[in-house]
Each structure stands twice: as structure tokens, then as C-alpha cells.
């Protein structure tokens, strides 16, 4: 009972944080000097694809204000929550084990290799991600757990909502590269890139060439979870 209440409180807290994070890139209550860019992603079969990473990378120039807000990658119910996270290089990434068991989070096969154990209820923010790359994560204890962290070199990044929409307030108008990424996207490097010129508040619709493959379920395929019976 205590666990459930605790989990509920955590969820509430996380939702508040999320709202904060999104509000950073939302066009609601936007300031006068910023330009609002709205992007909606759909596929041939489906309108409004949810939880796709979309980021804008200025072309021809650099160094935007780095995002300072840390992101939290939770391990809840023996799965990465969320499945897909996105963060700016060198931002703080906090792994939070919200389960009552130990996890052994790792990433291999890329420049951002890491591996650590995280006990129940603990957090870890020691990993420095200083290379823009796609980090596939797994758990050595729970093979089925799978999570992705996309590190980008731009503060303009976000994930589509349930309508497949995401919006950014950009400081400077100009030429941008719009990238849509998803690990199950059936295209090269799991991404789709579109170059746009932004001079005013604008909205772009991006239609994926291929359908998104089924997202693997982070579930133990054993018939029963003997651990759940273990108090």
C-alpha cells in the first residue's frame, strides 16, 4: 500500500516536471521576441504520430544557449520510462530507479558507453554525455528493458504529443534542419531530415516515408514474474 501511494506521488511529481519541460518549448505565452515553430508528424497510414523525437538544428551557425534543464530517465516497472528520452549534449541526465529492485544500466556499441548498477530508489547522474549520438540502453539484469537517449547539439528538441505535434520558440530566425528520429523508424539512421527556413511563426507537416515499426514491449516474456511474489 505504501509503495502504491509512493508511486502515485512520484508520478504526480514527474508530470509536473514534464509540463515544465514542455512549457520550455511551447508556444503558449510566448514572448514577443521569439518565433513559434509548430511541427506535426504523420505517416501514410496514421495521422499524429506520438513520441517521436523532433529537433531543430540551425544550419550555418552554432552555439545556442545550452539547455540547462536536466532530464530524468526512470526505471519503473522494469522498463525504461520513458522509452525515448532526448537531451542536449552535456546536459545533466539523471537515472532514477523507481523500482524496488536493482538495475544494471548499460550502453554499448557507441561512443557513449557506460555501465552502472543502481539500487532501488536511488538516482545516478554521474554519466556525462558529451557526444551528440544515439545511446541505446539496456539492463544487464533485465534483458527485455530497452531505452533510448538521443543527444542533440541544439536546445530546440522535443517529442510529439498525442496529436503528433510539437512546437518550439526559437530565438533567431533563419535556416534550420528539422530532424525527426525514432529507433523504429524505417529509414537511414532512424531519422528523417528536412531543411526549412523560418522567418515567422510557422507550422510544418512532416509525413514519414515508411511506417514506424512496432515498438518492442519492455516486458518479461516469462510466464510468471516470480519476483512480484517476493515481498
Amino acid at each position, binding site marked *: 500500500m505504501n509503495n502504491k501511494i509512493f508511486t502515485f506521488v512520484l508520478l504526480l511529481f514527474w508530470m509536473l516536471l514534464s509540463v515544465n519541460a514542455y512549457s520550455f518549448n511551447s508556444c503558449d505565452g510566448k514572448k514577443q521576441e521569439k518565433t513559434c515553430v509548430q511541427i506535426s508528424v504523420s505517416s501514410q497510414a496514421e495521422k499524429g504520430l506520438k513520441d517521436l523525437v523532433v529537433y531543430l538544428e540551425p544550419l550555418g551557425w552554432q552555439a545556442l544557449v545550452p539547455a540547462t534543464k536536466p532530464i530524468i530517465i526512470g526505471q519503473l516497472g522494469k522498463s525504461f520510462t520513458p522509452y525515448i528520452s532526448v537531451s542536449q549534449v552535456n546536459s545533466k541526465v539523471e537515472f532514477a530507479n523507481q523500482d524496488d529492485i536493482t538495475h544494471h544500466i548499460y550502453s*554499448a*556499441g557507441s561512443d557513449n558507453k557506460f555501465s552502472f548498477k543502481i539500487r532501488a530508489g536511488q538516482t545516478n547522474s554521474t554519466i556525462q554525455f558529451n557526444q551528440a549520438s544515439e545511446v*541505446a*540502453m539496456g539492463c*544487464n539484469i533485465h534483458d527485455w528493458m*530497452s*531505452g*533510448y537517449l538521443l543527444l542533440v547539439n541544439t536546445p530546440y528538441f522535443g517529442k510529439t504529443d498525442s496529436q503528433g505535434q510539437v512546437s518550439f520558440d526559437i530565438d533567431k530566425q533563419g535556416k534550420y534542419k528539422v530532424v525527426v528520429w525514432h*529507433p523504429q523508424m524505417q529509414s537511414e539512421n532512424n531519422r528523417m531530415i528536412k531543411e526549412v527556413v523560418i522567418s515567422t511563426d510557422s507550422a510544418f507537416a512532416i509525413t514519414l516515408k515508411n511506417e514506424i515499426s512496432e515498438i*518492442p514491449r519492455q516486458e518479461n516474456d516469462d510466464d510468471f514474474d516470480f519476483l512480484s511474489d517476493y515481498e
Partner: protein
Amino acid sequence: MKSLQNKIFLFFVLLLLMVQAIAFWTLYSGNKNQETAEINNRLSTAKTIFTELFDRRLDYLAAFAETAAKDYGLKEVFNDDTRSLLVALNNHRKRIDADLAMAISAEGIITGQLQRYFQDDTRSKIKQGAERNTAFRFADWLESGQTAHLYIIDKAIYQLSLSPVTVGTKTLGWIAFGFQIDQRLAKEFMAITNLNTDFILKYDDMWRLIASSTENAQSGQELTLAESVIQGVIPPQYIATHSLITEFDQQEFGVVMYGLRANFIALLQEQWWRFLILTALTLFVSLTSAYLIAASISKPIKRLVAQAKVIASGDYQQTVTLNDDNEIGQLADEFNQMQAAVLQREEAITHSGNHDPLTDLPNRNALNQTLKDFTEQQQSFVLLHLNLSRLKDVNDTLGHDVGDEVIKELARRLQALCLSTNFKKLVHLGADEFVLLADHLEIDDTVAQIQAELEPTFDYQGISLQLQVRMGVAISPEHSSDAKTLVQMADTALHHTRDTSKLVQIYQPELDVNTVDRLNLINDLKQAIPAGELELHFQPKMCLKTRIVTHAEALVRWQHPNLGMIPPDDFIHIAEQTGQIKALTRWVFTTALAQSNIWKTLGLDLNVAVNISAENLKEADFHQFICQSLMTANVAPEKVTLEVTESSVVEDPESAIKLLSEFKSHGMKISIDDYGTGYSSLAQLKQLPVHELKIDKSFVQRLEHDADDQIIVRSTIELAHNMGLHVVAEGIEDEFSLNWLAEHDCELAQGYFISRPKPAAELTTWLLEQQALHQSSAESKANIKENT
């Protein structure tokens, strides 16, 4: 061999053999099926084991590859430098001693390949494979998720399992581990199943031998065998099975498992020996039992057989006892009863064999036995042979029943005699003949005793019958001490009483006509005619009126070489009895005719008389012979007289009369010989076709002194003359008779006074003299007459 015991034994033997054969056959076919089933089972088990083993290796590989793929250490270095990857890969390979380990990148390039090479049986070395940095040949395997494969590098074939290396859901690449399919596997498999194992692979449409459990196998030979097994052709000396794996591209992988059939049968052979020994043992025991059973059944039967032999040999005293209540025991009882019955019957038979059925008196067999006993003890005794007189008359007139009663009465009386007096034994020879054995006392007394006993008449149903017996008597040892001879002597004596009409005759040697001499005569007579021992004598007959000899009677004489002259009375009788009278009469007749012709040429005119026997009259061709002879000799029938005795006509008057009539009509003279001695009636005489009567000499010889004879002769002559017959008188021995007969008109006279019978030549001389004498006396008479 055909004894009951053998039969029963044989039956048991056959039965047991049959049972054993069925049992053996059942077991044999069962075993054979078991053998087949065992072999099939073994083969299918081997096949299963192989599949299991093969799959187990794959499962093992798959499980391991999957586990290894999840190793973080491996994942960490998967995309790093090759050296690190190879070391990590080899570490994993070592854990399961895999023969092949591979790492394949996400792009499908083989980034690492480790292969084991065998230097010899035990030592091996891991080397980098040649396929590094080349694309993995079977890209579809990577995507399909299927983990088990057969993978060929050069000529080595591996069982291979692939597993993806992932981070979460992201695939970094694949790792693969493989076990080589080689001789080690074949041998391992052989160690489990005891079957030789070959692995063969077909590529480019040709089977090649990959590995074999057989060391230093002649690969060609091994391959040929494996190939034929794969095609389903199993050489008879082998048992074999196979398994085919055809899943991988255009190549076939086959496993052939085989063994020598003999090796597997050998295991079963041992059972066979045990079974055969058991069968033989059972058979022996059952046959022994069968023999004993057969013996126990046949033993009492054998005893019965032995008993039957004892009975057959005539021993009725022994009985057989079997302590059995069964059928055999009953049979033994029946045997004993039968034995008693047989004894009884045999006694009855013996009794009837030794006794006369009518009087129940001892018979001839008993007599012989008694006589044998008496003569052996050299007793002196009298044997009386009794014959009841006139029994035939009683039988004929009163019937045989009465006859039998008479015989019985006689037997009773003689038996009574035996009880009371010195008579020892009474024997009934049969019919009306009895024999009495008596002590040798005064014979007359003995005979008197018998006659006294038989004197009272026997009254049978109101008929008074006289029991008169005639007796022949022989005395032992006075006449003979031989039993047979005695009986014969008594018989001879009895026989003689019939001829002499005496009642008692004591044996005398003279009575014995059936002497050896007589028997010899019978034989000698056969030779007499051809040997010329017979000759004819003639006795003249004189005409009493003229005193001239006008007739001559032919009389046969036998000049026996040893016995001299034998009178006709002695041998005519024999000739008649032995059938030789036919030849004799014919010889006499033809000889007499010849003599007649001789006399005729000499001017002697004589009628020749020949005696004809009664037997001659019975001959069918007698008439033809007489006529033929007359013709041949050319003698006039009137010159022949046939003399026939009364008695010969009496026997069969009708045919005799017929024959004589024919002779008479032919012209011959017929004369009745020995007239007066027979019993011919005047009625018969009247019918007879005769010319003359010949009065028997017994009436003529004493004519001079006997007045009665004169009356008889005279009346006979008168009778004859009255019937138109001439009279011949024979036996004239004196002048008185001759003259007396002449006075009484007898026509012819014959006798010693005139002439004895003389040989033909002698008589011829005498006749010529008589003729001359007569002529001279006639002349003188004539002269006297003339003179007077």
C-alpha cells in the same frame, strides 16, 4: 515291433514330438519376431538417439549462443578492435569447446571467425578463419530468427547456432558457435548405440563421406554401403537405418547407422542354446515317462499273453492273477473262467473221442489204448469180436430207432457181464460190432457166459427180439501179442462165421485168406497174360446118345513161375474183385476160338464152351467184343457156348437176360453153369434165353449111391426137357453115372471118367484117337449090323 507297448510308446513319442514341435515352432517364430522386433527397436532407438544427440547439440549451441550474446563484456567490445572481440569470442568458444565461433556485424560482415583445426586425435589449434571481412553467406539466417543450421566451410560441416547481440532492442550484430560433424561425433554415437556411423554429404549431385566411426575406413567401400542404405537397399548381412537432413541449400546430409547382423543375432543365439538344451531335456524326460507308461500298460497284457501260451500248450492248471480292478484285471478273470470252460469242453471232446455216442461205451480209440496197455504188460487175455446178427433186418423192418435200441440193450447186457465176471473191458466199435476183453480162461465157458447173458429175448414195445451174436476170438499171446494183429485176427475169425454160419470161431491161421501170398497173386496176375503164364486146358463133353465128343469146355490154368500151377478157383475170384476178369475172359475167348479153328483144320468138329463171369455181363462193349472176335476168327456162332452161372444172372436179371438174348439170337449157345447150387427160381429160369442146363457136379458125383441125387437129377432133366432145354451133367466119375444119365436122356456128359481137362495139344491127340476108335467101332458095328 508291433507289440502294444511299442505302439503306445510310439503314440506317446509322436504326441510328445508334436507338442514339442509346436512349442518349439511357437517359440522359434516368437523369437524370430522378437529378433526382428529387437533389431527394429534397436535401429529406431539408434535413430532416435542420433536425432536426440544431434538436436541436443544444436539446442546446446543455441542456448549458449543466446547466453553469450547477452554477455556485457562481449557487447562492450563487439564494435571495438578485432583483437578484443576475438579474445572475448574465444573465451566463450572455450566454454563449450566449440569448433567454430563467429561474430557478424550488423551489416552482415563477418568480423571475427575462429576455427579449430585438429593436428592429431587430441591436439588442436584455434586459427582465424578465412572468411573474415567477407559477407556472411546466408543473410537470410540473420533475419529469420532460426538459430540452428548446418554450415559448411570447405569440406568441414558444422552444426551452427546464431544469436543476435543486442542492446535493448538494438541489434549490434550476431555471434555464432558451431560443432563440427566429424569422426568424434561418429565414434561417440557408436559408443552409445554400438552401430557404425557414417556421415555423408551430397553436393554437386555426388555423395561424399564426411566422417565415419570406422577407423581407417576404406572410404570407397564405406561410401558405397552408406549410399545404398540411404537408397533403402540394405545388404542382408547388415542391419541399418539412416536419417536425411535436406534443409540446406541443394545439399543433402545423411547419417547412416549400421551393424553386422551376426553381431546382434549372437546375443540371441545364447538364448537358443539354452532353449534347445531345455527342449532336449524335456523330450528325454517325457520319452522316459512315455516308455514307463507304455510298459506299465503292456506288462499285465504280456502276462496274459504268456498265460494264453500256457493254455495253448494244454496246461490248464495254472491261473493268472492280476491285482487290477480295471479292464485288464477283468480280462484276467475271464481268462481263468475261459480256461476252466476250455478244460471242460476238452474233456467232453476227449470223452466223445473215446466213446461211442450211442452207447457211451469206449470206442476203437479206447480199445487201442487198452490193448496197448495190456500188450505192454504182456498180459494174457482173450479178445472177442462180437457182431449182432440180423441187425439189418431189424433196421429194415422196424426202423433204425429200434435197431439202436437193440444195440443199446446188447450194450447194457454186455456191460452187466463186465461188472460181474471175468470180463475186463467192453468196447463198442460202432454199429453192431463190439469187442470184449476177457481173462484167458476156458474159452468155451466164456462164450457160454456171453450166450447165457444174451439168451433172454429183448421185449421192445411188444416185439420180442432175439439177441444173437456171432463171435470171432483171438487169444493173446497165443495168436499174437501185437494189438493190431489181434484185432485183425478176431475180425477174420468173425468174418469166417458168416461164411460158415457158425456162431463162434476161434482164429486159425488157415482162415486168413488175406495172406501175403494172396496179395502177391493180385499183383502177379497183372503180368500173367502178357508174360504168357496162362494157358488153356480143355475138358471134352460127350454126347451120351452117340458117345462122341462134340463139345469142349475151355478152362484157364495159371502156370505161376514160383508157385507152380494155380487152380482157377484161387485166382478167378481175385480177377473178378480186382477188375482183371475182363482181360482174362477176352484172352480165354480169343484163345479158345483159335483152338477151335485148329481143330477145324484137323477135321475135329467141336463146340467150344467159355465161362463168362457176372462181371463180363456188366461190360458195355462185351457183346461187341464177342461178335467182333467171332468175325475175326471166322468161327460160326453155333460152335460157341457161353457158360453163365446162375448167380451172375441173379444179380441183374434184366440186363443179363437182354444181353444173353442177343447172344442167343446171334446163334451162340447159352448154358447155365452149376445149376442147382444157386437160388434161381423156376420163373427166372423160364425167362432165361438159354439152351442148356449144366447140372452141378455135386449132384452127379455120388449118383450111384445117393437115391436123392438121382431123384434131383432125373427131375431136373425132365424139367429141362419140358422147358425145351438140353442137359449137361458134369462130374461124371464112373461108368454107372454115365450110363444112368444116358438112360435118363441126358444129352451131354463131362467128367474125369471121360477125360480130365487137358492142354489143347494133348486133347487133340486124344480126340483124334477117340475119333479113330469111334470110327473103327462104328465100322465094326456096321460090320456087325451088316454081318447080322
